[in-house]
Structures are given as C-alpha cells and as structure tokens.
C-alpha cells in the first residue's frame, strides 16, 4: 500500500446556473496577463455544445489521454520516441484558432475622434498583433446555444449518438441543455505530466495538485496535446505552458480556491480523498465501461482503522486523515455514489467528479408547459437527454452507471416532495429508496449536503504548508500580474 492524499472536487451540475462567476474570479486572479488572455483555467461550457477549445473531446483530432497498447498504457500522442520525434512540430497541437484570438476595443477612439456626423465607434483589435480584426469566436461563443446546428450538433458526444437519439435531442420543443464548468482535474494518471519531455510537470505529494514548474518548462508544448481535457495552455508570449494551480497559495492560507469561493450556485465541493497509488496503473487499464467503478474502488475509506494505519505508514499526516474523514467529496463519490468522473475513458483518472444534472433529463413538455414527469423511474428511458449521451460523458458509455445515479437523485426528490408537499404516500418513498439502494438517512444527508450546506461543509481544505505572505507594506497593486508561479521576476519574455 502506498497511500496518498488528493485534494479532489465535486461539481453538482443541477445547481450550476451558468453565470460564469467562477471563470471571472479565476481570470482576475491568475490569467489577466499578456499571453494568458485566452487561458480559461476555469471555463463553463454549454452541453450539448462544442466546448472550449472547440471539440476538445474529439481525441481523434487532439490525441489527448491514454490508449491501451496490449498490456500497456501509452499516450495517444505516441510512445516516448514518437513524442520526442514530434518535438520540432507537434502535429496534434491546437492553435489559437481552436480557441479564439483575444481582442480588445480601441476605446480611445470614442473620445479622441474628431467631430463629425457619425457616432464614433470603438473598433475591435487583436491583443496579439494589435491590428483591427473581425471577432469570429470568443471564450463562450456557444453559451446557451443548445440545439444549434453549428455548435451543439458538432458536440463529439452528440455526433456519436444514433440518428434517433439525435432527433430526440434536437426536436424543437425538447431542446435541452445544461452547464458544465471545467477546471483541471488534477488527475492521478495525468497525461500532461507523462508527456512533458523536460519533466517539468509534477504532482505535489502532499495534496496531489498538479503544477508546471515554470523554470523547468522549455516550451516543448507536448502537454497541450496530451491533456485530454485541454487544461494546459501554451503562453504564446512567454513561451511557457501554464495550467490551473487549484489556487494552492489560497489553500495554503486555508482559503477555498477562487472559483469555489465565488461560486454563486454553490455547486462546488472540495475535500481530500485517500487512495492507493500502487493501483493507479491497474485501474487505468480497465475496460471503458468499468473505469468509473474502478476509479471509485481506488478511493479508500478514511474511517477504516486498517486504512488509517496504512496511511500513517505511508506518511500521510494525522490532520490530513482527519480532513479526509470530513471530506464532502468522499461522501458524494464513494459513500453515496452520486458523482462520476468526466470522460473516464481518457484514462487519466480525473479527480474532479460531477453529479449529473437531473432537471434537463426529467422535465417533460406537457402541452407547452414544462413539468416534472409523473412516473419518475420509467421516464429515464425517454429522458430528454439520451442516457447514452450522459453515459458517454461521465461513465465511458456505461448507461448503468448514470442510471444508478439518477435513481438516487430521483429518490431524494420523491422523499423531499413527500416531506414538504405531502402528495406522495410513504410507501412510494420507500419504494423509490429501495430501487435507488439508499436508506432514508442517506437520502436526508444527501438533501442536506446538496441544499443546506455552509461553506465550511462544502469546502474542507486540508492543512497545508503556508507560503510566505506578502510582506506587510508591499503595494499589491504594484505587484499585480506577477504572482502565482514562485517567480521572483514578472512572467514576461526578456531574452
């Protein structure tokens, strides 16, 4: 046993209102710099939709993640020699056109234009070349554009569906969408780490946060391809790749990461999971359909005395074990089995889990009015979002995994309806709980964790090394745009 601690997260998609506050919080803190404008370490996409960068899920195109080669795992971009051989030009590297060209407007023209008959306008200019440009894409270009023939119809998950399922999705009165916020998953079997020729990317032993050493990165830009989630970004001005740092400086000061802290829908949960690092490879080798379950199995019960003993032997601090026992992520993922990894078939063992959204699935169109379906369980089959679509997102195509989650979510709804409105008889509630394999206590606990939690219950930051604070008296404004990489110099190109 080689037990390690991992700071992990759960995003509860039913609660996301798609406000993008998380993205802005992150942008203001970390990526408001030249060369980083286009980096959205946190982004919120509309599903079905093409996502950011466009069609990032299409690994035929971007070659992210791992593939099984007989008895071994290999990066999809190639073996070690293959990767080095492609170092002079990386054929699967996305370019700026797959994201968007960052732009601003010539606001000065509004005040400096000479008097005339026309209103002065602020023309858009490229933040790369400074030249006037036509804006053709942006960070959230297909926001809420579900049902679109350009965007949603080109979602790699939708393309895979049968014609019938696609029709089900796009029938005009059935049009459906949900929001999916994404950050780096701080994977256990990270593709970015494995692909870096310099070995600049690493996982922090104490908390599992994946970071890129800015001093070691040489701009070989292999990680951009190898991350199947496209969560490493190449800094086109600095010549260094950057990624989400899970706000480790904030966590080291005991604070929630910025996107978690600012989340309006309170959809984000954070906490420590204990896992056995010796199992990583064997889990990553499972068949697609078994991956979600295998990933649950690698997570250990922090209350089990044997696990506690082994964890101590492996050097996990007592306070971290104690923190793992309070982890809401453990509850959602393992105890209740409500949260699933995004695209486990990429085999990086992502450590961000999603509670799939219930509402777009269950709500039905009834003579022009949206209402919840009456006969809850049978409707799963005729759900507005095909189960296969959800299964291809969260369970490597295994519909049973997603259905099991939905049965639980539905049981919670039935129980709450019965308790608050009182129009559902008690035996119906018991029946729902039995089908969902939940006891009434768990149902109540899920309800409370989902709706009534305070920040300290949603976000349980383990005790971490505190970074030296900025000395009192320093003007933070003066040092804006410099922090976050342990750089003693501003992250700019100098040579």
């Amino acid at each position, binding site marked *: 046993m080689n037990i*390690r601690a991992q700071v992990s997260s759960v995003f509860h998609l039913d609660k996301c209102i798609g406000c993008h506050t998380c993205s802005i919080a992150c942008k203001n803190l970390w990526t408001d710099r030249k060369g980083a404008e286009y980096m959205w370490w946190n982004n919120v996409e509309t599903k079905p939709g093409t996502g950011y960068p466009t069609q990032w899920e299409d690994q035929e195109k971007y070659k992210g993640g791992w593939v099984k080669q007989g008895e071994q795992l290999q990066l999809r971009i190639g073996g*070690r*020699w293959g*990767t*080095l051989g492609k*170092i*002079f*030009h*990386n*054929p699967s*590297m*996305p*370019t*700026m056109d797959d994201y968007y*060209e960052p732009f601003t407007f010539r606001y000065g023209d509004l005040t400096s234009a000479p008097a005339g008959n026309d209103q002065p306008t602020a023309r858009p200019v*490229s933040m*790369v*070349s*400074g*030249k006037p440009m036509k804006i053709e894409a942006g960070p959230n270009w297909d926001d809420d554009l579900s049902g679109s023939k350009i965007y949603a119809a080109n979602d790699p998950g939708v393309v895979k569906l049968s014609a019938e399922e696609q029709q089900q999705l796009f029938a005009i009165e059935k049009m459906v969408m949900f929001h999916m916020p994404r950050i780096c998953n701080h994977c256990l*079997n*990270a593709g970015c*780490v*494995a692909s*870096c*020729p*310099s*070995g600049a*990317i*690493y*996982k*922090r*032993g*104490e908390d599992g946060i994946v970071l890129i050493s*800015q*001093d*070691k*990165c*040489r*701009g*070989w*830009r292999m990680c*951009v391809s190898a991350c199947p989630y496209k969560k490493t970004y*190449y800094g*086109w*001005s*600095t*010549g*260094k790749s950057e990624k989400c740092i899970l706000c480790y400086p904030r966590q080291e000061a005991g604070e929630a990461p910025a996107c978690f802290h600012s989340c309006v829908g309170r959809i984000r949960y954070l906490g420590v999971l204990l896992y056995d690092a010796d199992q*990583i490879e064997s889990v990553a080798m499972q068949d697609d359909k078994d991956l979600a379950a295998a990933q649950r199995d690698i997570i250990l019960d922090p209350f089990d005395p044997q696990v506690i003993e082994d964890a101590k*032997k*492996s*050097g996990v601090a007592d306070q971290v074990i104690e923190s793992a026992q309070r982890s809401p992520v453990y509850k959602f993922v393992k105890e209740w089995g409500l949260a699933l990894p995004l695209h486990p078939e990429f085999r990086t063992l992502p450590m961000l889990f999603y509670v799939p959204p219930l509402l777009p699935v269950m709500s039905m169109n009834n003579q022009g009015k949206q209402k919840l379906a009456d006969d809850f369980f049978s409707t799963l089959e005729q759900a507005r979002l095909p189960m296969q679509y959800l299964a291809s997102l969260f369970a490597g195509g295994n519909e049973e995994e997603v259905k099991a989650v939905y049965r639980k979510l539905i049981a919670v709804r039935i129980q709450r309806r019965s308790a608050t409105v009182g129009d559902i008889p008690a035996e119906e509630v018991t029946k729902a709980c039995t089908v969902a394999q939940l006891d009434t206590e768990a149902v109540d606990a899920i309800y409370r964790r989902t709706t009534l939690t305070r920040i300290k219950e949603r976000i349980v930051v383990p005790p971490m*090394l505190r970074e030296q604070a900025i000395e009192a008296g320093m003007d933070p404004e003066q040092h804006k745009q410099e922090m976050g990489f342990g*750089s003693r*110099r501003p*992250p700019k*190109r*100098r*040579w």
Partner: protein
Amino acid sequence: MTDMILFGVFPYVAVALMIGVGIYRYFVDRYSWSSQSSQFLESRVLFWGSVPWHYAILIILMAHFLAFLIPSGWAVVVGSPLRLYLLEVTGLALGISTLIAVALLIFRRIGNARVSAVTTVVDWLVLLALLLQVATGVYIAFTLRWGSVWYLHTATPWLWSLFKLDPQVHYLAALPAVVKLHAFNAFLILALFPFSRLVHVVSVPLTYLSRPYQVVVWYRQRRTG
C-alpha cells in the same frame, strides 16, 4: 592581422560569451530558458520549416563535429570515391533543405501577423545569421567541391589549434572569402546563443526516454514507516 582578430581572437570571445552569459542566464533567469515555440500562433508553415530545418541541421552539425573530433575516422570514410560522392550529395541535399526551411521560417515571421507580433530583434538576428550560414554553406558545397576532404586539412587543424589555446589562423589564410565568412559566422552564432532562443539546443530532453511517466514531488520529507 584581420585574420588573427576574426579567427584567432573572436572565437574565444564568442565561446566566453556563450559559456559565461549562458551560465548566468541559466542560474539567474531560468524562467527565460525556452524554445519559444510559436506553433500555437501558426502551425502549417512551421511544419514545412521547422521539421526539415531541425533534422537536416542536426545531421549537418553532426558531420562538422565528427570531422573535427575524429579526423582519422573521417578520413577513412571519405577515402573511397563512392563514399565521398554519396557523402557530398547527401550533404548538399541536406544543405538545400535547410536553406529552403530557413527561408520559410523567415517568410513566416514576416507574413503572419500573429507570429511577427511575437518576434523580437534577437529572433531576427538568429534567423538571419542562420540564413547566412546555410547559404554560404550551400554555396561552398556547390562551388568548392569535396569539402568533406579539404575540411580535414583546414578547419580541423584550425579548430584544434583554438582548442589547444594556440590559434593557428594560417590554416584559413588561403581560403576564399566565402569560407572565411562561413567560419566567422559560425562563431557569431555561438555568441548569439546565450542571448536568444538558441539556448533550447542544449536542453535536448533525452531523459524523457528513461524517466517514469508520473512525477511526484514532496515538499517536506515524506515520513514513512
């Protein structure tokens, strides 16, 4: 006298700069050590520039080094007319590839607005110096045949004399100006090396072939057992 300055003194200046500034930059500003890839901004032309450029220049450089380091072995290789012929033809073909490739890289930096926006003065100096180097190289290969042989009696002893701190510039004295330009420009590129993206050449990531895929770093000593 000019020869002495260009080929007896300047090489030491260039190498001193390369090592001195290189070490300074590596230890004081390692953040700046990067290939400065611009593929993110433009990928298609880069492919036709970067791939032939790198494969060809690496082989050509290797040949220059081998003929300098093990001249006796090299002499054996070029001893047979057939081998010499093959070598010269291959060298010329590779040389022409680098010339076309570097021309493409230059046009790309002029023609693409995004790439030209991230191009610095030093980037230009490097590309122009490399263009001059491969252009003179190809010209020499065309007009002064059998360079793989006469290199052994001119460049090799000159480079060794530099190495032994006893510069003998007379080995180059009788050579045409274009060869002298090629030799001087080679050291100019070395002098540019520490100030430019060329530093990426010494960071060839060969350790990638043997390191474990996953890297875990512990901030505190891991207390186990």
